[in-house]
């Protein structure tokens, strides 16, 4: 449901209502007819609707019937516009969909009423113009009253055309949305299709065909990219806002950093006070290892290994192709999707964070170990790993309790308006019960 289209329909319906009420009043009280030389007095007599109703002249009396029909049609216009307005309000409430649709459709009928009334008004005035005794009423001799009415009628009809066009567009969009929803429901019912990637390798193992991408897939991909861009922007804005809001509050990262710093200081103080081993020595090891490995590889190139190399080359090619396909937007795509997944399943992100923490701790512990001898390293690694695992498990338990984000805050009961303390679970919805009156509620 497009809210902009509803707003435009609303604005037009109010304007049309104003015009139709004005037209109704104008037809009711403005003079319509003028009879020259009335009863041989030499004066022109003016007639409005009320005068015409009480007239003895049959020609004038016949015009009244026509005017009555016009008034009824304008009344129908007013009612249809009013009902349409109410229909729009009901539509926004997202209840009684069929009733609201009928009411809005009834509003679209106003174009029929208005055109019919305009046609009748024009034919009636043409009859007056053609009559010898009758003349349309005038303000000045060159300017008739009916020009005012016709002007408002024309304006009414022009706006009405646009108004009905908007209603038609609104219904069309609604139907489109419904169809999309139905398609989605149907696709959910069916088994989820797997993405078919046509990767074929020739017998020689050298050529590799690129996966065929359908037009639909491309469109979906483009849509996905657009959506993700907006999502990334939103997330960036949110992050900025959060940073601005929580400038004073120490964030989890800050806490962790502080903790890490303190731990590092403690570790350095406790473990490396009496060690004279230089850290620079460690940097030379990887260089030597790499050279040795390369020499061994060159020496041991058997036909079996060559085949393996070819396959590995192919895999590298595959990766390159996939990278070329994805490029920059798809990189952001992965990030955004992982974020989206984390949003949907917040537990996953936390576990990942904890895993990162674990890795950090392992690294910190590995650093002092590197300085020790290789023999002692093997012995200590086993022990430290176990200890680290134990410490990690111990660390996770309170962390998980904290990561459940059970925040305590004061809540005011809407029934008894008493304040009490409640714990909130950020991961999902928490149900609260008032200890004073027993009213149940939910915090999102």
């Amino acid at each position, binding site marked *: 449901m497009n809210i902009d289209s509803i707003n435009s329909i609303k604005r037009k319906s109010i304007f049309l209502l104003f015009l139709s009420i004005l037209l109704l009043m104008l037809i009711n*009280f403005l003079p319509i007819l003028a009879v020259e030389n009335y009863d041989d007095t030499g004066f022109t007599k003016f007639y409005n609707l009320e005068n015409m109703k009480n007239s003895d002249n049959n020609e004038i009396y016949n015009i009244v019937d026509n005017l009555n029909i016009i008034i009824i049609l304008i009344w129908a216009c007013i009612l249809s516009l009013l009902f349409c307005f109410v229909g729009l*309000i009901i539509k926004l409430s997202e209840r009684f969909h069929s009733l609201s649709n009928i009411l809005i459709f009834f509003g679209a009928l106003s174009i029929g009423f208005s055109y019919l009334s305009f046609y009748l008004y024009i034919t009636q005035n043409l009859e007056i113009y053609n009559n010898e005794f009758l003349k349309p009423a005038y303000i000045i001799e060159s300017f008739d009253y009916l020009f005012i009415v016709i002007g408002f009628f024309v304006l009414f009809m022009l706006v009405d055309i646009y108004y009905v066009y908007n209603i038609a567009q609104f219904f069309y969009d609604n139907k489109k949305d419904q169809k999309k929803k139905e398609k989605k429901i149907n696709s959910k019912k069916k088994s989820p299709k797997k993405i078919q990637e046509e990767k074929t390798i020739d017998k020689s193992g050298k050529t590799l065909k690129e996966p065929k991408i359908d037009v639909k897939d491309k469109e979906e991909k483009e849509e996905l990219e657009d959506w993700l861009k907006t999502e990334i922007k939103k997330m960036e804005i949110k992050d900025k806002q959060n940073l601005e809001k929580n400038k004073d509050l120490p964030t989890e990262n800050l806490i962790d950093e502080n903790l890490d710093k303190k731990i590092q200081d403690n570790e350095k103080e406790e473990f490396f006070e009496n060690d004279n081993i230089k850290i620079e020595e460690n940097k030379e090891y990887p260089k030597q290892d790499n050279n040795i490995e390369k020499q061994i590889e060159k020496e041991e190139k058997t036909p079996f290994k060559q085949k393996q190399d070819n396959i590995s080359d192919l895999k590298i090619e595959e990766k390159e192709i996939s990278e070329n396909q994805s490029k920059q937007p798809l990189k952001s795509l992965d990030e955004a999707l992982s974020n989206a997944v984390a949003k*949907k399943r917040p537990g996953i992100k936390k576990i990942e964070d904890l895993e990162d923490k674990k890795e950090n701790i392992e690294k910190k512990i590995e650093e002092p170990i590197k300085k020790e001898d290789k023999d002692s390293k093997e012995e200590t690694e086993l022990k430290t790993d176990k200890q680290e695992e134990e410490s990690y498990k111990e660390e996770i338990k309170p962390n998980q309790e904290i990561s459940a984000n059970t925040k305590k805050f004061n809540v005011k009961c809407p029934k008894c308006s008493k304040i009490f303390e409640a714990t909130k679970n950020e991961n999902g919805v928490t149900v609260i019960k008032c200890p004073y009156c027993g009213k149940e509620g939910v915090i999102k």
Partner: protein
Amino acid sequence: MDLTEDIDFEEDTNIIDKKKEEMKKEFLDENLKKANVSFKKVNKNNKKIFKRKPFLKSGILLIAIAIICLIISSYSPWMYIRYNSENGSVEDVYYRYYDNKNNSNDEYVNNFFKTSNSSKLIGISSDDFTNVPQSSFYIFIIMIVLGALFTIFEIINKFKKFSRQIRTIIHTFFSLGTAIICIYYIFIIVKFLGANIMLSHNLNIIKPSLDILNIVFINPIILMFIVAGILKLSFTMLKINFKEFENIYKSNQPEKTMKNYRYKGEKI
């Protein structure tokens, strides 16, 4: 490496863990305290939003206006006329049902406002002074009933709380009813305004029968303005309801349409 060093290491790790826990608890406590303060601020803002209720006393307002209109229509004059007679210029006031409290009952005026004469010239006759007040009485009674029903509904709503949507829908139907009644009343009463225009056009034909200097339909003009005000109020009520639903709809809907996308074969 000696075993003693291992034991020391174990002890150290335990101390570090304890320190970690203590430090984290301290940080979390500080955070929670600050978070409590922030939550309290948000609650205050929320209270302001939810306390607003548009046109809670609109029913009472409608009843009050309708009663005022009834009093005006029954006790204030419907027509003020100034005309030339044999005795000079005469001023007269006519109330509803063509009631003249001065008991002047001038024959010229009575003859002019007979249905056979005046209705042909200015479109209004003495019958209109009886029919229109009667119909206006019924219309204002209907308005009072509508207002009463609305207030009753509001009272019921206080005890048996309806959903916000149903409340506003009923609200819109009430305002729609008042709007239709108001339009109809203006449509009826506008003939008095037309009579003024007709008088200015047909003055030359009217003069032989009654030399009217000035004619003002006081009550119809006042009532027309009041009813137009009620109409405007009912439209604003409709607009408020529309905006209320619009805000609810906007708050429920995300900024962009949510779509299910596939990522690595699975729907997000």
